[in-house]
């Protein structure tokens, strides 16, 4: 099997799973209980949280544990908009966001908020001048993902944060799901943003846990009201073993991250060099993309046809991001190519430090076979 869909999800790291197992068996108490077993569970959660904060260089931020990035995105967007609706009702976003951003935005739109889309430049990055013209005293929230899941293009978080900071009533949220654990975020990254969301299963952690990082000074309206938890803003019995596992997963993902990044870059270059030679292939990722995501379009072959053809050879890639599975054009690809055909035929190959050079050779050979076979039909 050749798995090239690491941006959809990653296989859990065995050590992470062992940590989860150990914590599940050893810490059976409810962290909210007052007895020793409860206190032991609370202690291990606190220690995992402390480690996560150190790994992410958090100082004045709170970590809210959620079921994943989708819940974290929902909590950030609805939480801040309902809390501060009196400040303004304008939200700014891009056409490159995940459905777990568009979902709450649709919901908020139906509750009186307005949603504006900032233009992208020819490289698929936010047009900062346009953002400057859109943002005003009525703007409550700017939500822009750090890395686009389809093309891997990294946004200018620093510059966006600088613009937002000119409006003290406005908050900046960024979805960092495709960034965390893939490259080292700048040490002061979280000082610049008000909210950031991610999930653990994108960096070899378990599915079912994510985090919303929030400036401690900002309060939000919870989505889930109820019993005591690790945060005022997300009720429910704390998931001790999952919390331990996310901390472990991040620590392992960040180990030798520079070497892992350089290796993935080599793999990316190998694919790029090989696929650039095909007349009907458009390469959609660009110099601003992380090497882990390689987006291309095979112009005369339907993306799902190519995906299933490769699957016959036990090779797994994806069409658009897995959460927007219908067959429409990719806005992310259209933004960088300005080409309707390319945006209707995009495929995503996503790489990991676990990917071997032999796997890339296998993929390239299979791609070549199907490219010629399907093009002749």
């Amino acid at each position, binding site marked *: 099997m050749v798995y090239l869909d690491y941006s959809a999800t990653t296989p859990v790291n065995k050590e992470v799973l062992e940590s989860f197992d150990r914590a599940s068996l050893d810490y059976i108490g409810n962290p909210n209980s007052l007895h020793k077993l409860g206190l032991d569970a609370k202690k291990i959660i606190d220690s995992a949280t402390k480690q996560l904060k150190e790994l992410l260089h958090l100082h004045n931020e709170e970590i809210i544990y959620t079921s994943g990035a989708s819940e974290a995105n929902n909590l950030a967007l609805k939480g801040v908009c309902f809390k501060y609706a009196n400040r303004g009702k304008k939200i700014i976003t891009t056409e490159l966001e995940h459905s777990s951003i*568009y*979902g709450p935005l*649709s*919901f908020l739109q139906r509750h009186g908020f307005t949603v504006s889309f900032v233009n992208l430049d020819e490289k698929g990055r936010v047009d900062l001048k346009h953002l400057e013209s859109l943002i005003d005293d009525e703007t409550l929230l700017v939500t822009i993902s750090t890395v686009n899941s389809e093309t891997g293009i990294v946004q200018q978080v620093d510059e966006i944060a600088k613009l937002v900071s000119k409006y003290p009533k406005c908050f900046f949220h960024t979805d960092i799901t495709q960034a965390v654990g893939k490259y080292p975020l700048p040490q002061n990254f979280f000082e610049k943003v008000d909210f950031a969301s991610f999930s653990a299963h994108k960096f070899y952690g378990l599915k079912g846990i994510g985090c919303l990082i929030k400036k401690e000074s900002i309060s939000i309206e919870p989505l889930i009201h109820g019993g005591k938890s690790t945060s005022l803003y997300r009720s429910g019995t704390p998931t001790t073993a999952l919390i331990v596992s996310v901390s472990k997963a991040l620590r392992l993902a960040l180990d030798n991250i520079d070497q892992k990044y350089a290796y993935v870059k080599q793999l990316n270059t190998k694919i790029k060099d090989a696929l650039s030679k095909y007349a009907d292939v458009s390469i959609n990722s660009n110099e601003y993309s992380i090497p882990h995501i390689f987006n291309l379009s095979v112009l005369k072959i339907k993306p799902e046809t190519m995906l299933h053809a490769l699957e016959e050879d036990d090779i797994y890639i994806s069409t658009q991001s897995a959460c927007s599975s219908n067959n429409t054009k990719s806005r992310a690809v259209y933004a960088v190519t300005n080409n309707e055909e390319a945006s209707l035929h995009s495929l995503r190959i996503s790489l990991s430090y676990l990917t071997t050079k032999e796997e890339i050779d296998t993929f390239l050979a299979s791609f070549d076979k199907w490219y010629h076979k399907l093009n002749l039909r």
Partner: protein
Amino acid sequence: MELIVISSVWCPSCLIMHPRYVELSQKYHLTLTNYDYDTDASIISKYHVGDILPVCIIVKDEEIERIIGEKSMKELNKIIESLM
């Protein structure tokens, strides 16, 4: 005349078009019915909606026009006025 709009929460074009259809319905006093592409799948199956969203079906006893994807307010006004 009635506007039946089929949209989805994961679709940015639907976010863009939603306030325009609300404005259009208010301006021309049209009944606006919203359906969700995923959760109302059984209700909307009769409309044979394709892959591009949102879809606005304009009904006057029967379907008289179908608007697919993004349109400007100017284009929407023109379509409605031609049907009135």
